[in-house]
């Protein structure tokens, strides 16, 4: 379980991100939505200890986490997938998977099976610049999934890809969640899967979580103007 308590982060001048209390239980699926600049990424970063200049408590699996370099954090099996992907430019696709799984040792067969899973068959030896945009997305996803994380954080990773590919990749994540059972926390502008009743939506606006609930709950009583417009658009 991840818990954020009395959390405050000075993002810019006159812009604070605040959370009084937020609990995310194991294997939950959390989608963070909100207008641009509302603090979605800040909340996601807060939950994986990436915001260094913050105040408050972050507790993961009962252990207080002091910052991103806290040694306890390494044991928590966190993984992040972002729009920028963060691929390692000097490594081949296979080396990405090998490093993610073993931190150096080469594991060709296992690496190939993960690459096959995301549709990168026969692309094992290619480096990121030798892959297309969609293939790079697939590689980043394979790297994230092969670590078998306990908590997977997605920061609008599919914002720049076509709807069909975004759907395919999201389906892969859903399947892997059923197999691996990880907690999924995602910021999104896409509508994919939002209406699923198992998904908990956090609506963020002006540096605060203003509403929490399933699609049905939020649809029945949207809390502010932006949420009302958003619900109307989703219908």
């Amino acid at each position, binding site marked *: 379980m991840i818990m954020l308590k009395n959390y405050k982060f000075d993002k810019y001048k006159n812009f604070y991100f605040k959370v009084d209390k937020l609990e995310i239980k194991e294997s939950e699926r959390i989608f963070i939505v909100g207008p641009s600049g509302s603090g979605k990424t800040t909340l996601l970063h807060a939950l994986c200890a990436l915001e260094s200049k913050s105040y408050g408590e972050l507790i993961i699996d009962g252990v207080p986490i002091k910052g991103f370099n806290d040694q306890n954090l390494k044991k928590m099996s966190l993984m992040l997938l972002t729009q920028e992907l963060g691929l390692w430019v000097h490594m081949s696709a296979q080396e990405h998977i090998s490093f993610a799984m073993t931190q*150096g040792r080469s594991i060709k067969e296992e690496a190939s099976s993960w690459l096959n899973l995301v549709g990168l068959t026969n692309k094992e030896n290619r480096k990121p610049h030798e892959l297309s945009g969609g293939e790079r997305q697939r590689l980043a996803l394979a790297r994230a999934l092969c670590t078998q994380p306990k908590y997977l954080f997605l920061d609008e990773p599919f914002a720049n890809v076509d709807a069909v590919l975004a759907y395919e990749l999201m389906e892969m994540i859903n399947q892997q969640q059923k197999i691996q059972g990880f907690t999924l926390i995602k910021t999104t502008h896409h509508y994919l899967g939002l209406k699923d009743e198992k998904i908990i939506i956090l609506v963020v606006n002006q540096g605060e979580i203003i509403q929490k609930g399933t699609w049905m709950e939020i649809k029945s009583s949207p809390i502010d103007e932006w949420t009302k417009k958003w619900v109307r658009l989703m219908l």
Partner: protein
Amino acid sequence: MKNYIILFPLIFIFFLPLTFVLFQVANGLTQSSLEYFTTSQFSHKLFNSIVLSLGVSISSLFFALISTITFFSSPQRWTREILSLLLFMFFFISPIIYLTALSKLTWFNHLSTYTQSLSVLTIKFFPLVSMILILSLVKIESNSIRVALMITSSKNVFKYIVIPQLYKPLITAFLIVFMLTFIHQEVPSFLGYRTYAEEFLSRIVVMDNIGEISFMTIPFVLLSFLILGILTQILNKQLTSNSKSSFLLFQNFQKYTFPVIITFSALFLFLNALLVEELFQINIKTLFIDNFSVLKNSFIISFFTGLLGSFFSLLVYRFIYSNNSKYIKSGLILFMLLYWLLPSSLSSLGLIELSIYLNDYSKSIGYILLIFAYLLKIVPIALLFLISFELMHSPDMFLKLQNINTVNIFKHITVPTSWTTWFTLTIVLTVFSLNELSSTVLLIPPGEETLIIKIYNLMHYGDFASVSFLSLIQMSLILLSTLLIGFLLRSKYDYA
């Protein structure tokens, strides 16, 4: 097309001095002219040059690693800014001024000339290596570090993710410092450490046989071509970048930030204090009046050179970035860098040959050649500065689509977006021109003086009071310039 019309003749003129030297070499190439390269005198000096260059490269890398780690582990922006200021100051100040200060220390004078040269040149060059490393680390995408840190320890991330991406900049920095030390003439010359570059300079000063001196340029030209060839391989992929860095990786070193910054600050203040000490024994007002014309002269020449240099380098930079061919881009950059890796005295030799060819030794020709020599040295630095800091944004695509006329583009787009770049660059180049010694020694018209020449001459006479005064004035000018550059760059950059 307009760019080509202005740029190509300028580039042709730019390479004229080197062409003159190489023509002289090719024209008189005989078996006997190459005999110098078989003498023990040559091998001894070449050995000294290589040993010093290796020593300075290794020690510069060592101190640069410390300052780079300190930069990235600094928790606050102001500590990074102080460190940047110190690095820029150490890089901008002429090593002759370090020598002035350090020569007052008895223990320093007891060191071997090799160790003295090594120390002074390390202070001069480690900031350059630091800047290369810092800029390279900044270009590693932050999410690639974040993801890796979620998987494994900082040590492993450093070993498997950072070092493989950093080894090219490390080799580049090593090669550049090696070459800059190899061609450095002033410090070994002053300290009496016999290097090949020092021998080359002293031969040009005596001017005993211009043909023989031209042959001495062969190792410089060959080595600079070799290093540029290696850099071509290394830098091909460095022309594009990702931006943003990871400060997360070095957070564990935070406890060393303040000790390192305090040590660097102390060294800087100590060097200044050694100079200030002398001022109590002299009449500052009289010295200032006596040296006013030299100061004015230096500043006008340097500022004028800075303006010309920034104009020319912005023209080249604009051409490089508007050209689609990777080979033309990297070829032009590397050719422009050539003069940076050649001794100033080599281009000055070409200019002396040019003046012999023109048969004109007037004062105005002397100044024109001097400014030309400064430009040859500072334009490559300007290009590196522009490329490293990615200082100019090209609005071309949008403007082409809108079909806006050139005057309006210049007035509403080019000036507002580029004036800080042009101004910053002019200041940087003015500072470099102020420090250029070898070309000034060789090309300044008889009876004329500049600040750096006066400092150099007074050091030989042992007039430390005047040297300290002039050095402090130069230091103050550089400090003011650096602060101004920092202020201008701050508006364009957010380190964090």
